[in-house]
């Protein structure tokens, strides 16, 4: 066999750049000034007209493809099993098993919590890591700001004298926090869990920050500290799940006590995992708020 010598395999070996030609074409069109100035003017006008025509073409194509997509999806939807059909292929033995044996195997009344934090806990760890990665990217993007754009975005609420908002927040803030903690702590017993409860907690913190100005809260919870708390919670999550995987894969008979089904302290690791996820979500959402509204007031 001879060595493949096409352009693609050359590019794979790192010898040539496939996109070099295209890139130089684009740059010559508008970026780099051409060699002789007198020829420049008619050329540019031509490209401008061409660009405009392409722009309209793009719009027409886009709308047509959208209508085509709509028709395609509608015809596909009409072939789906009827809404609420108990014999639909999606409700198969997998979901039956989660519901039937979930309580015995995970100790959680809420089958969804048992599913995402016990059977598929690794998946949820990935989700929390996605949130963390987003928070870190936003932190990187918005960290260094120039002073010339201090008022780039109009402030949402910076009114120190907004009595109605402040009184309402002062009354409702403890209840929002209490409800958020309830949803997190009862994640294995009732609808809810780390993600929804963490979102409630984060929304409460955002409300407080919007009513009383972000200085007070951002001093207590700066982005660096919330990131640190998030990392610690992720590590605790990883350690707990590593323990489960290690003991499970090696057939070690270390049973995590399940407790009485229905009690708060039950269902093994689901409660601590829910708390970790709740703290991660609350910190991340509040972090987004602090970073995105930076420089408002």
């Amino acid at each position, binding site marked *: 066999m001879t060595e493949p010598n096409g352009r693609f395999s050359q590019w794979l070996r790192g010898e040539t750049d496939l996109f070099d030609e295209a890139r130089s074409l684009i740059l010559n069109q508008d970026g780099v000034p051409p060699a002789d100035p007198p020829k420049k003017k008619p050329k540019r006008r031509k490209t401008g007209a061409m660009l405009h025509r392409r722009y309209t073409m793009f719009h027409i194509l886009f*709308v047509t493809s959208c209508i085509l997509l709509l028709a395609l999806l509608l015809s596909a939807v009409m072939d789906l099993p009827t809404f*609420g059909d108990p014999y639909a292929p999606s409700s198969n033995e997998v979901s039956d098993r989660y519901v039937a044996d979930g309580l015995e195997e995970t100790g959680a009344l809420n089958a969804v919590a048992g599913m995402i934090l016990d059977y598929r806990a690794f998946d949820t760890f990935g989700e929390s890591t996605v949130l963390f990665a987003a928070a870190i990217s936003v932190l990187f993007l918005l960290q260094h700001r120039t002073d010339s754009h201090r008022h780039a975005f109009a402030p949402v609420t910076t009114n120190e004298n907004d009595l109605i908002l402040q009184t309402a927040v002062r009354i409702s803030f403890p209840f929002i926090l209490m409800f958020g903690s309830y949803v997190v702590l009862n994640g294995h017993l009732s609808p809810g869990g780390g993600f929804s409860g963490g979102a409630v907690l984060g929304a409460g913190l955002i409300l407080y920050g919007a009513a009383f100005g972000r200085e007070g809260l951002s001093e207590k919870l700066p982005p660096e500290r919330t990131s640190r708390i998030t990392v610690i919670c992720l590590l605790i999550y990883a350690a707990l799940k590593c323990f489960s995987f290690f003991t499970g894969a090696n057939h070690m008979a270390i049973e995590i006590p399940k407790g009485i089904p229905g009690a708060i302290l039950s269902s093994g690791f689901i409660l601590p995992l829910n708390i970790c996820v709740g703290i991660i979500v609350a910190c991340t959402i509040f972090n987004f708020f602090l970073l995105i509204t930076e420089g408002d007031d």
Partner: protein
Amino acid sequence: MLEHIINMRFEIAAVFLFAIGFMTLLHPNLIKKIIGINIMDTSIFLFLAAAGYVDGRTAPIVTGLGADPSQYINPVPSGLVLTGIVVSVSTTAFFLALTIRLYRKYNSLNLDKILLLARKGKEKV
């Protein structure tokens, strides 16, 4: 046929929401593009939640050992919606951060203007 359409109303609404979000992407304003992507996300959540529903069954809060699976709806799509919401929130925050950076550099939210300015290599008109 009409009865089938009425039965499939949630899925059809999800498809229309998806198309609306897709059309919103055409708008040159970056914030409206982000809103369009969020509408598309929401349509997917509606579709998944509709796929998990079974007539006459309750939420999967199992109250006793040896539960009968034919009493509860399918819990798997609920978990998928949860995953989808988290990813949607993360990507939205990332888009917004990128938009803020673009606005600080070019002082505009119009993508066409930004592209023109970026081609000319100019900042801040």
